[in-house]
């Protein structure tokens, strides 16, 4: 008998609005630990807003309000007094690679340095480990001290993944990471993610239905601020009791 994995995240009655506009309504779902959790849905369905609610990024977005519960290991993220420590446990990769205006090495060591790590040997070791895990090490090992912005788009996106890994997060949130990345690099990153899920929980927002199908253990389908369906990925694509909107979307009939 297979033990059910513990839930890393439990979302209960999550509402998100910007000013008067509700963009996410009453979302309930569980994200099991050490899995890839896919979120698919057309534009404006609230996927990015969902991710922002997870690590309390709403607090830095003016006008964004979140209500309901986000439980991380059973405890509401809102109960964390130190939101910075919370965010350190949750790595984020944005749709367009945001290389900070510094060298490759400085990009990867940004967060550890910020937390006071000064030991050069440990930082060097960290740089190599994170870049290897992001499948970028071989390409940049000889130019770690050149500007991150000199890399190609796909390399920059892997750099942001390496950076997100630098704090050994429990959770990795990826928001349409492959938007600016070529198909070959996308495949490499997908392989990386499959490896990474042994160590962390991954929430993958994607507008490529097939990407969710390839990677995700479970998938949620968002539409116009509603979580229409959530379940094992295969059952979203082949299940018998699917919502007709889900069927339309995964079969490419709209969006």
């Amino acid at each position, binding site marked *: 008998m297979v033990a059910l994995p513990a839930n890393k995240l439990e979302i209960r009655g999550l509402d998100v609005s910007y000013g008067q506009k509700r963009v996410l309504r009453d979302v309930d779902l569980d994200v099991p630990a050490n899995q890839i959790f896919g979120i698919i849905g057309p534009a404006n369905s609230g996927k990015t807003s969902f991710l922002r609610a997870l*690590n309390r*990024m709403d607090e*830095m977005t*003016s006008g964004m309000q979140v209500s309901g519960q986000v439980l991380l290991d059973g405890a509401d993220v809102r109960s964390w007094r130190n*939101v*910075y*420590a*919370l*965010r*350190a446990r949750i*790595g*984020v990769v*944005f749709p*367009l690679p*945001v*290389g*900070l*205006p*510094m060298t490759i090495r400085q990009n990867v060591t*940004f*967060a550890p340095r*910020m937390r006071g790590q000064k030991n050069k040997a440990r930082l060097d070791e960290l740089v190599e480990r994170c870049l290897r895990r992001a499948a970028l090490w071989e390409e940049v090992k000889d130019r770690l001290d050149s*500007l991150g*912005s*000199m890399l190609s788009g796909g390399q920059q996106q892997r750099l*942001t993944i390496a*950076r*997100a890994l630098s*704090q050994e997060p429990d959770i990795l949130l990826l928001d349409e990471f492959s938007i600016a990345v070529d198909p070959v690099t996308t495949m490499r990153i997908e392989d990386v993610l499959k490896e990474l899920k042994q160590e962390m929980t991954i929430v993958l927002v994607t507008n490529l239905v097939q990407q969710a199908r390839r990677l995700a253990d479970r998938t949620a389908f968002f539409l116009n601020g509603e979580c229409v369906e959530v379940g094992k990925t295969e059952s979203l694509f082949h299940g018998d009791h699917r919502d007709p909107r889900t069927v339309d979307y995964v079969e490419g009939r709209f969006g």
Partner: protein
Amino acid sequence: MNAEFDRLDRAWYIDRIAKGLIFLCGISAIIFILSIFVFIFAQAFGFITEDLDVGEFLTDPTWRPTSESNPVYGTLALIAGTASVTGLAMLISVPISLGAAIYISEFATGRTKEVLKVVIEMLAAIPSVVWGFIGLTIMNPLIIQIFDVPMGLNVLNAGIILGLMAAPIMTTIAEDALKAVPDSYREAAEAMGATRWQIIRRVVLPSARNGLTAAVLLGVGRGFGETMAVLMASGHSVNLPTSPFDSVRALTATIAAELGETAHGSPHFGALFTIGVMLLLITFAINLTADLIIRGGWKQRGHN
């Protein structure tokens, strides 16, 4: 043959004329600068070639141009006057301006931000004679009272006044530089758990470094060239200052105060214009540096 593509219509002519006029306006700025430079240099030319002793001019603290028997044209005290006042002004205004710029760009929102920006622009528009007046009538007795000194018109007074004068423009330019840092940088750092202060110190300030340096340099240039307020607040006495409570005389103020009483073409007249050339060259160098730094910043950003 009168093909469609050969017909010159109204829009074509207007475009041509507008182009010409705009070109003239643009080029006129260069012509003005060049002719000012030529004019000032021409006035100073006689003095520079005949009477000027460069060593004395730059290193003698005695400025005695009106002596019949033994005129001395040493500008060291004047240079020291300008440098001490400008230096103190920068000491005061750089931190205030950067602080204000950071507050406006990173913390203030909505109404507060708008009101602050308007107020700062208004401050920048206060005429310098008004600042001089404040130095004379408010700062002077205040300094006498607080520090128990006989005279309140000195380096301290002029430095504070000049600092307050330079602050608005520095704040405005520094704020522009901070505003140019993409929000995505702030967001990425924040998502990694950076605090507000860490974002400012480790991401925003380093990215805006060029613009901030330029802001400071332009502030320095402003202080350097300021005349009226310094004339009124500094005490205007030739002195190598040893403390902030010494009165000094600035290069600019010397020209303003003496030029009217000088015989056209006399060595004194030429000496004042030589000071003018010096000021022109220095402010030119400062502004050029600031400009190059700003441009360098743009180029760098262009690579992203």
